[in-house]
């Protein structure tokens, strides 16, 4: 058949008798399948559940806790206070870059970049863009349930 071939040179384009629909659709199917698989694979690294302890946790306040004195539950970045109006919790995670702020009688102080917060969490100095958030506290028998995921307006106190 080669002798009768209409082709003159191997450098000429192949004569395309018809568009190769079969080849194109096969390629398209393969590409879209692989793309779909890629999407599925990209989903994998996005962790569905976090291995950190639950963000809602109970706190038992010691009877000796004085007004304005912070109670820091072990392993938590939350300061729980009690005064005559009730119990409230302030997050001790700096709103600047996430360091844990230290509690002192004047309020809170961040060791990383020098942000200062007053006792109610408002920024008094430094780069922190927002006040320390107040967290939702609910009463559960003789325990207090602190919910780190729910932020309440400052001044909200649970009784």
């Amino acid at each position: 058949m080669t002798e009768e071939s209409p082709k003159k040179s191997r450098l000429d384009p192949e004569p395309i008798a018809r568009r190769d629909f079969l080849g194109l659709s096969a390629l398209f199917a393969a590409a879209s399948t692989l793309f779909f698989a890629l999407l599925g694979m990209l989903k994998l690294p996005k962790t569905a559940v976090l291995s950190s302890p639950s963000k809602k946790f109970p706190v038992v306040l010691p009877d000796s806790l004085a007004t304005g004195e912070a109670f820091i539950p072990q392993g938590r970045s939350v300061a729980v206070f009690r005064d005559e109006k009730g119990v409230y919790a302030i997050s001790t995670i700096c709103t600047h870059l996430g360091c844990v702020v230290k509690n002192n009688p004047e309020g809170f102080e961040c060791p990383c970049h020098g942000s200062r917060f007053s006792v109610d969490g408002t920024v008094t100095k430094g780069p922190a863009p927002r006040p320390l958030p107040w967290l939702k506290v609910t009463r559960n028998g003789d325990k207090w349930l602190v919910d780190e995921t729910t932020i309440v307006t400052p001044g909200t106190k649970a009784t």
Partner: protein
Amino acid sequence: MSTNTTNQNRSGLEKFWDNLRALPEYFRGTAFRTGVPNTDRTRSSFVFGNLFLHLHSVRTHLWSLKWSTTMGLGIITTAAFLITLITGVLLMFYYKPYPDVAYLSMKDIHFVVPTGRFIRNIHRWAANIMVVTVILHMARAFYTAAYRKPREFNWLMGIALLAITLAMSFTGYLLPWDQLAYWAITIGANIAQSPRELTDALGLTEYIDPGGLIRLLLLGSDNVGPEALIRFYLLHIMILPLILAMLMGVHFWRIRKDGGLARPVDAESRLGVLPTNTYPVFTQAPAKTYQLAAVVKGRTPLVGRGPESTVPSMPHLFYAELAVLMFTVFICVTLALISDAPLKELANPSVPENPAKAPWYFLGLQELVSFSAFMGGIGIPTIVMIGLGLIPFLDREENGTGEWFGGTGGLDVVKRATFIGLAVPIFIETIAISFGWIREWFPQTPQIIVTFINPATIITLAYALYSIYLVRRYNSTRAGALGLFTCFLCGFLVLTIIGTYFRGPNWVFYWSPLDWPKH
């Protein structure tokens, strides 16, 4: 750059503007230097201009593209490897290689990682498929006598790849840290230690203890613990895949350097009339050398051959390869959807799994190990590996290359050898299962005798003798090789089936798992 003519008259800012507009096209030109691959030249440069494609030669023989030539087994193996590679990397996002924690992370992957279970199933199935096809691929290469000159070295590469594939699979087996994993690896590590059986029997262990050394290197401790897990992990995700990828590169590169896939001398005439949309080359005279004649010595494998029915690899070969890849993907995802990878209870070093079975492809060996750890686990496999490696150097005949069951004896020998290959292990196993072995008959027998005279060695010996008989009868090494290879394949099959389906707790023979005693 269509604006070239007016370039001189344009201000700098305008030129900058033009360049900016032409950016996409210009960029495309730098990335893909050849145009649409629709001529032989552009197709060629499409292949050799691409890092990933240039392992292929630019033209592929039509014989290689026939489905019956390779059945795509090599490509399936490669595709399965790529799939395990990708899924394996994904699993590493969540897997934590430390005892107990590893098991919990497997549970996480199974239950809460998005797509985690599916990915793990694919990983597991692709690994199994890889083991199956790498064995079948070797059988294909053997039966088409594709190992012959000039492909001897590539045959050795293939054997190395087979060994590494099995090692990859085995090291991955420990990682889930469940009962199955723990006890399979405990047994595996003790098989690695089994040269001690020999040195013990000879009273040499206190002077030289290769078995103990291998085991220590493998486990990093005296039992399967955190050290062993991290070592297996390192082997599984790093060392072995790197070696495998490297050897695969060599293997592929040698295919090209050895002149493509093996094919019969009269391949052209057997192909008959070629389809009209292919472009055979060298219709006039075989004058090409591919190599720079003045610089490189020697002949290319193609010199001296007649006109060849080759087609451009782009797109013909790539369609075939892509098709096989997608076919493998389809098989893997389907199996992954239907069947979950096993995960038993957490590894418990004080309660052995009974029976503790290795992955299925090792159950033939485990069956042999039940007679002698050294012979079954080290001796026979070593002999088989050496035997396989020697084949191309001993069989230097030329007839039948590239043809299924080609060479002296051919299909006839294969049929006879299949019978012998099945009958011998069944017969020996029947004796061993019904009447026991030397130890049961003469309890005082020294270990050295049991090590050298047991069903494993007897089966091997029977195969070897049969093969020598074939060499004499057909007056051909190829006939002997055909017989021996077929026998070993059949032996592997029989022993694997016995190990998988007919061995229960305490490695006792049972007709069916339903008869196993319930502990």
